[in-house]
């Protein structure tokens, strides 16, 4: 330690020196470890997150594809959609995707069906 004007007088220095460090009330590591483990997502948790996100995305894509094929290729026995209706469908479909709502897409499908039917 450097000696300087800022050193304590010897009597006070003794008092500082003899103050033994106190022991903590409880060992600190278990608490720190628990908090650290709480910070890190476990492999299982990250797997379940990716599973949830992935399956959600797949379900949405499947729903949209189902609607597309259902509307654009109505199948045997149904008349093909007229070009005006097709244009309206594709135009509205774009805005439905822009809105990002499968419900909007579904209501569009229902509307188109009722227009075709009328």
């Amino acid at each position, binding site marked *: 330690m450097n000696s300087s004007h800022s050193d304590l007088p010897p009597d*006070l*220095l003794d008092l500082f*020196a*003899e103050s033994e*460090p106190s022991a*903590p*009330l409880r060992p600190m*590591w278990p608490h720190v470890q628990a908090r650290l483990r709480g910070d890190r997502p476990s492999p299982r948790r990250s797997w379940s997150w990716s599973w949830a996100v992935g399956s959600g995305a797949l379900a949405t894509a499947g729903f949209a594809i189902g609607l597309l094929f259902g509307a654009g290729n109505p199948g045997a026995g149904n008349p093909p959609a007229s070009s005006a209706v097709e244009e309206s469908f594709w135009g509205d479909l774009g805005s439905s995707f822009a809105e990002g709502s499968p419900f909007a897409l579904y209501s569009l499908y229902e509307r188109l069906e009722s227009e075709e039917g009328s």
Partner: protein
Amino acid sequence: MARGARGDEVAFQALVERWERPVFAFLVRMLGSREEAQDVGQETFLRLCREAERYQPRGQFRSWLFRIAGNLARTRLRRRKIIRWVTFERSVHDRPAPGPPVGEELEREERRTLLNRALAELPARQRETLLLRHDLGMSQREIAAALGTSESAVESLLQRALGTLRRKLRSLETERAS
């Protein structure tokens, strides 16, 4: 520390067990409360583990550790809006008390209590500087790193802290004598 930064829990555990005692003692004297010192000590090590990747091996580990502890202690003091300890009696230390002190031991005990009370009345920054210097035996360079200031500022802080401490001690001794 390098092992800890790579996520080695055993290394962190060894680090915490090696340093928890001096960190706790420092925080008890900074905060005047063993419970709060325990909380802030745990927070210090948690912060240390989380920020391990930012540690520069060429720096002094001890300065870095006590910088975290000091910052957290001052934040706690500001939160309490109490810059001085209310009481700081013998009970904050773990010293065994086999019986009532007598003679010379009584005198030392009283002087120790006076020192603690005088320390408690110092501004937090001055108290922190004195503790780093005289409790932990840090060099002025280490203290400067811990406080994020220059060595000359540390020298000045220490001189002011000692001046204040002497005045407080005189005043408390007069109070005791009267």
